Every structure is written in C-alpha cells, then in structure tokens.
C-alpha cells in the first residue's frame, strides 16, 4: 500500500469531477457539494474507410 494516506473520511469537503450522467452532479449541487461537470462522449470508432479517405486527402 502506498504511503499516501487516503483523505476520504478526513472531513475535508468533497470536490467532485462528475463524468457522465448530469443528474448525479445536479443532486450533489443541491447539497452544496462542489461539482465540476466533465464533458464525455464515446470515443470515435476506427473507421477504415474514413482513414483511407483522409490518407488520400492529406
């Protein structure tokens, strides 16, 4: 285990990065918890046809 103690229950206020469902962040904000909403989109799938087209163009 690392020497870095876990501050989770230390009483320090939570400051949360919310990645995904915004409702979870909204409920935390209702309780005056600090929340930063992080943009999330599914990674673009590798598209062989598109890659070939880009190769031709570039």
């Amino acid at each position: 285990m690392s020497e870095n103690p876990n501050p989770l229950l230390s009483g320090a206020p939570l400051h949360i990065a919310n990645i995904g469902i915004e409702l979870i962040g909204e409920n935390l904000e209702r309780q005056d918890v600090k929340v930063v909403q992080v943009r999330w989109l599914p990674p673009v799938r590798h598209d062989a046809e598109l890659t070939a087209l880009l190769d031709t163009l570039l």
Partner: protein
Amino acid sequence: MPSRIVVRPREYHDSVRLMRLSQLLRKEAGVSEAMIMMATPNNRKILDTTGFCSEQARNANPEDLIVAVTAQTEEEADAAIATAIHMLQKNMENAGNAVQAGTLDEAISLHPDINFACISVPGSFAADEAEQALERGLNVFLFSDNVTIEDEKRLKQTALKQNRLLMGPDCGTAIINGAAIGFANAVARGPVGIVAASGTGAQEISSLLDWMDVGISHIIGTGGRDLHQDIGGATMCQALELMAQDPQTDIIVVTSKPPSAIAQDRVFATTARIGKPIIFNFLGATPPADAAGAEFCATLAETALATARHVRPEATLPCAPQADRDDFIRNALDTRTPVQRYVRGLYAGGTLCYEALLLLGDIPGGVYSNLKHDSHALTDIFTSQGHTVIDMGDDAYTQGRAHPMIDPGLRNQRILHEAADPEVALLLLDLVIGYGAQDNPARNLAEILHTARNIAGQDGRSLPVIVTICGTRHDIQNYSDQVEQLEQAGVMVTRSNAEAVTLAKRYVEAINV
C-alpha cells in the same frame, strides 16, 4: 396508427436525459408512444417488443441514437419527430453550457482541490475513465454497470496501490462526510458507518436507523461484486480500515449478499483488528460457527434494529399498525376470485428484491425470479410464472436505459401486464425515494396502479397492492406526501421491506389454507 423511426448515427446523450426527453415527447399533441434511446441490443429488443419494427433500427450500433414515435395521424407523427430533433439539438446546447471542463485533466488543472470522481458513462468505456481518475489520486464512485470482472480486478489493484477507493462498479449508493452520492437518503449524521456491497440494502438500513433517531457517519459502497471470489472483498477491506480509523464512526454495519469464502475470510481478518462493534448482514448466509462475538442479522430491518439498540437501547422498528395489516388481509381475501393465487413482486431495489426472495422462500410452489439460477430461474424475464419476484434494476433490464428508480417506464408496463393476468392475487412493490430518485414517484405509481386496477376491475377482479417505501422524513420528496398519495390509491404502505414481504406471505398462506 402511424409510426416513425429515425436513427441518428453516432449521437450520444446520457440515459437520464433521454428518459426526460421521451417523457416530454409523449406529451406532444397526438403522440401515444415515444422512445428516444441509444441503440443498445437491449433497447432494440424493447423497441421490437413495443411494435416498432425497422430494418434501420435493427442494424443500428450501440453508439447510434434512435427516435421512435407513434401518433394519431401522419402529420402528428412527423411533427413529433421534428420536435424530438429540436429537443435533442437544444439538449446538446444545454449540455454544452453545463460542461465546465473538456477532460478530467482540465478539470483538475482548473480546480486542483478536486478529490473525488463520479463516473457514470456506459460500461464498456467506464474502466478507462476510472483508471485515469485513480491514477490522478482521486477516490472514485463508479456508478456504471456492465464493467467486466477482469477490469474490476485490475482497477481495484490500482486503487490499492494508490491507497484510494474504487467504489463500484455498479455502485449506486454512498454518503461521504454527509454528501449523498447516487441513490441515497437524507439521513441525520451520527455514529454508524455502513460498508455496503448492496445499494438499496444500505438505503434501507440507513433510513430505518434515521426513523429510530440514529444517524450515519458515512456509507461506503463497494459495488455488488466486491465479495466475489475473483475480487476478494478488496474495496470492503479498504473501507473497513478507513471506518476503523474514522473518529466519527463508533459502530460499523457490513451489508451484502452472501460473500465468497475467500472474501469472507479477508473481511473477518480485517474486522478482527477493529476495536469497534460490527454488525454483519450477509443476506441468506448462515453465520460461520467460528465467528464468536460477531453479531449477525438475517434481514435489513433486523440489522437496523440491532445497530440502533447499540445507541438507543429502547429503539423499536417503525411499522404499520397491526389493525391496518389485519384489515388489508381481510379485505384482500373477501374480494379475491378463486383463480387469484400468485404474488408478483416488481422491485426497483436489487437488495430489497433479494431479501423478498429469502423471506418468501418456502411458500408452496416456490418463487420464480430473474435473480435465480436454479429450477426457479425465469425462462423469459419479461414474463412471470407462478409466484414471481423480479429485480427490474438488473443489468438485463437497464442496459442503455436509466435505472427504474429514475425511469419507472419498464416497471409501469410490467404492472399493467400483471394486472391483466387473472391469476395475480397481489402486487408487491418498492418505492425508493431520496437523492437520485424521481421528484414525485408516488404520483406516477398511484396513476399506473389506478389504470392497473381498472384493467383488473373490467375482468371482475380486485388487485391488492403492498408498497414498501424506502426513505426518510428528511428526503426531498416528502415522505408523508408519498405515503398519502399511495394510501389514497388504496395501497397498503409498509415501513420496511421485511414488513411488506411478511404481510405478502401471510396473505399467500391464507389463500392456500
């Protein structure tokens, strides 16, 4: 009636947003059904069973979006599709406004005091996000389900190395320093710390403790598979060590479905070093013979009571008046037709469902369920047989759509389906309130039960209903209002799941006398 299906390739919106948009679209003129959902295999099956057949939808990929509408006229169907597309565009603009950072690293550089990450992206992408957060020294609440057990094992090894917690995957409930994360209830602060591999188990215990005026220091969720033999209770042991050192926690509750032998040994080895009272609730497991001194409770309610009595020896469990329970049984028997003989339990809370199966266990004919893997496993999870109790929050129902505590649509459909079955004698339901749940779930449930009763009534049948409400008087939905709305709808409301199931069992046994 005319219907339209539009597939929008590679357009992503979260399941809660899509559920909200679907609800809005159903209110448009002439619209009788509307579904906006990601094209996961599960959602494509739901579309098919709802009568929306389209080659384009069947061939869609999980990262594509499907808009499906049925309306009274061709014009109204076209108008609804146009409205849906407008709403989706507006939603993307609003989501863009809500976003405060493009990436986790950007968020941390803008706010260096970020110390926690909540992750609720689709399961196949969740492990990468969780790993990134753990490597940056954050504790992680991983709400996403459908994460592989191999990924869970790897992530928990990273968490251990970093000395941070990975709560999850499929972790629904936590309360840390008073902040309720995911599905959790508004409970008073106090001396009881809960470590839970079962979300609604933690909600039920903490809510019942609150009713007995005993507060909570923290709830740490571990994810439902943490006590699986491949994971070995990794998060639970870390959480117990944290609770042991926490000055706010005087008593610890451990709640879970039965653990694997290896996880149980590790948990007991950890708890043996903690000099605080520990109450175990391993639903359905027999207490080990060599666990002298440890306290074991069979049900969630018993666990809450045993814990409360450490703080307030005079504590008693809340329950409905005996007279109300007797009246319910008498009325149900008086209005029953001879063919009505089965109970149908439709649960949003997985642990509440599991507990119901345990408590109903020995009724004649047994109980079928999607949680069983033996001769009483349901052949088709969308069709009940005999006595049936199902967990509608199970992955099989929720892939690509919001949990039934947020989106009751699928359970509502099932309630109406059960109401049409002449053999159904009783509906047994839960209603979980608190953070994460709908704003007024009792109103929605009362409306659907009114329709269900009409369906049964047209066939000359009554439809008795028991609902257990999991929540507290401090919850944002107003507990008393929730009870009142259900009671006005003719529902028998109980204060704990054990009370609800015991009453249901009493009725079934009275039928079979």
